């Protein structure tokens, strides 16, 4: 088990890890300080529509005369919020189910894994769309939908590492000297799941952000006036020729964000779990 500090050190040593770490940090700062950094309210129509990028409107304005730069910043908030909360939902449920399935095996394991197989039987974006169709649109429902979609990967990851941890000698020893189930799980087994779990969480974040953007693009995710990169892009599509900045900036930020999380996830995997290296 590597300590947090060592993981961090190794991550910083790897140039890609450094890029990922700094990128994510910057992104979080942008999102947290969006109200300070933004020049205008993201919903306010402050200028003539479709103004080209200039000193006042760094990324130009959209077809409603709203400041794209401010909307991008607030959009980062929405993206990260949706990403973190939906992965949070998926990770916590997935963690509990994974531990239960991996530790107890037998029937309960089969039931949980069967449900996961069923969830896995849907293409993920389709499942997310289906769930929002039922729950209704809007930010909370988008989070829930993406959360549910991501549960199975966490269950599988955690279950696999629990099963391999159970075979470890010291866990066997602890068990044989009569350590109770819960402390055994928490103290001896759970720590073994952390590495693959963290890697999975980082990669799930990037896919959650991508799913959110796709759904908002289809008009099923975040609803106006909340700024979301996906919905900004879907709006901008009609004006891409007259106002390419309306298209370029959201795409740029979507791609960079997903890229950064992928880079961080890859380097984390190399550091934490060299076995998984691809």
């Amino acid at each position, binding site marked *: 088990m590597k300590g947090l500090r060592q993981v961090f050190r190794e991550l910083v040593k790897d140039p890609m890890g450094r890029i990922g770490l700094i990128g994510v940090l910057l992104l979080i700062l942008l999102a947290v300080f969006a109200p300070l950094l933004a020049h205008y309210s993201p*919903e*306010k*129509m402050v200028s*003539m*529509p*479709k103004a080209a990028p200039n000193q006042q409107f760094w990324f130009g304005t959209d*077809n*409603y*005369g709203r400041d794209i730069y401010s909307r991008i910043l607030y959009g980062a908030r929405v993206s990260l919020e949706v990403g973190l909360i939906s992965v949070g939902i998926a990770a916590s449920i997935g963690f509990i189910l994974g531990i239960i399935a991996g530790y107890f095996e037998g029937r309960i394991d089969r039931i949980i894994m069967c449900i996961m197989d069923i969830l896995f039987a849907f293409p993920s974006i389709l499942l997310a769309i289906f769930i929002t169709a039922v729950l209704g*649109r809007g930010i909370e429902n988008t989070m829930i939908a993406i959360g549910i979609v991501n549960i199975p990967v966490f269950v599988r990851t955690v279950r696999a590492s629990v099963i391999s941890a159970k075979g470890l000698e010291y866990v066997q020893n602890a068990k044989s000297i009569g350590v109770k189930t819960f402390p055994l799980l928490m103290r001896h087994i759970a720590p073994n799941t952390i590495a693959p779990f963290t890697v999975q969480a980082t990669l799930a974040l990037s896919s959650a952000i991508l799913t959110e953007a796709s759904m908002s693009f289809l*008009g099923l995710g975040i*609803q*106006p*006036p909340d700024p979301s990169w996906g919905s900004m892009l879907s709006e901008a*599509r*009609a*004006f*891409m*020729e*007259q106002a390419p900045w309306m298209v370029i900036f959201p795409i740029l930020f979507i791609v960079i964000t997903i890229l950064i999380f992928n880079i961080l996830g890859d380097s984390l995997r190399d550091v934490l779990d060299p076995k998984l290296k691809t």
Partner: protein
Amino acid sequence: MKKCLILFLSLVLVCFACSALADNILRWGFESDPTGFDPHTNPEDMSIRVMNQLYETLVATNPDMTYYGRLAESWENPDEVTYVFHLRQNVKFHSGRPMTAADVVYSFERILGRTEAGDIGALGSKSTYYGDIDTVEAVDDYTVKFVLKNVNAAFLGNLSSNYGAIVDKDVIAANGDLMRADGGTGPFMLKDWVRDNNVSLVKFADYWEADRVRLDGITYYVIGDESARLAALRTGEIDISTMSASNVPIAEKDANLKVLSYQSNQYIALGCNMSTPALQDKRVRQAITYATDREALINIVFSGQAMACSIVPPSLGHWSVPLDELDVYHTDVEKAKAMMEEAGYSKTNRLSLKVAAGLLDAIRQSAVVLQQQLAEIYIDLDIVNLEQGEYVDTWYKMATPEAGFDMMVVQDGAGTDPNRSVAFFFKTGASANVFGYSNERVDELCDLALSTPDPDIREGYYNEAQKICIDDCVKTGIACMTMYYVTSANLDGFAPTAADASNYRDMYFVK
């Protein structure tokens, strides 16, 4: 491996190289998929554009708002409530069967719910359209007599609407309705409808005015994206499409394209569901109207290419009461705020309303601008953009809680006659009075106007009714837009007007 790659690349090249050469087929770019082609029941815009080619009416409107015979060769008016139409004798349905007086009778019986099918929910069934037809009968094979219950000055105008199209009863008998079938007499026949993709029409060889029709067919392609439609126009993939004002400058720069425009009778309005308690308060409705900044909205949504309007747009000329005379249409946010406060709302006690909007850019974008403008007066709008079919369904339900919406942004056609723009939309129980408006005086005035042939007195009645409706603010007019068509430069013979914007009979390609 290498061979495979070369093979693949050459295949791709071949595909790109030989693009299909279109013959004399007009290719249209549609904003959304039509919902069906029953002219009596479907008011949806895309469908109407198709139905106007499939079906015809007894009379049609000239650009100066006078009428000429289409399926009727001539008509006479022996007394104020009787109309006798002499039909053309060479008209055939697309099935090849000649159209006779019996078909006209059937069509109107169907509209009025007097056939075996019962009430089919026809758009023209209410008194504002054909509801006051007392009897329709075939005098002989080519003569039809209509007797009205009371005098209706708008009767001819109503007949020119596709809601009164003449349909083939055999086709209805075979298909149940006309949503996916074609029972018309028009210049083009329905050939194929690939859902979400295209509708293709072919020229009807036995059309009564076949010599006049120079196109071999029309294919409507569904291209949701306006930018994609514009690109398709520029690359010659399609020949014609509507275009919003914001994209017109690009089209104008392109020598291969031509821009046609006309001041339409289409207007954007915001309607209140009268079953929502908060909106039953007139102060709230008026505050909404006061808070609406039409100029700002027009700048954003229509690039300035539209006119602020009430519920009777300026294209109706003297029938329309000028906006200056209408106090509620003078934007006054402070006054609106005060009224909201009076009604009990404040910064902390805001009013949340669910608004239905549509996928059409004008509707969707207007909703966003209104959302922003109304935020100032403590109103939070929650916008849901409805797909075309659901939009129409919701529109019908907007007077009831079942609609699920408190307000709706609509794009309505004011027609060519105040009967349509006032009575059709505001008279109690009228077909298009979807928001549940009801005012006894308005009903009375509409009836009076209809039975008054004298235009000046009629105008007086309509003006009074108009002002009452406007003051009640159940439906607030916002903007009446200039409509644009962008066509390829070699397309000729098309002159859209507010009266008739979808007459493609005379179109042709300049070789």
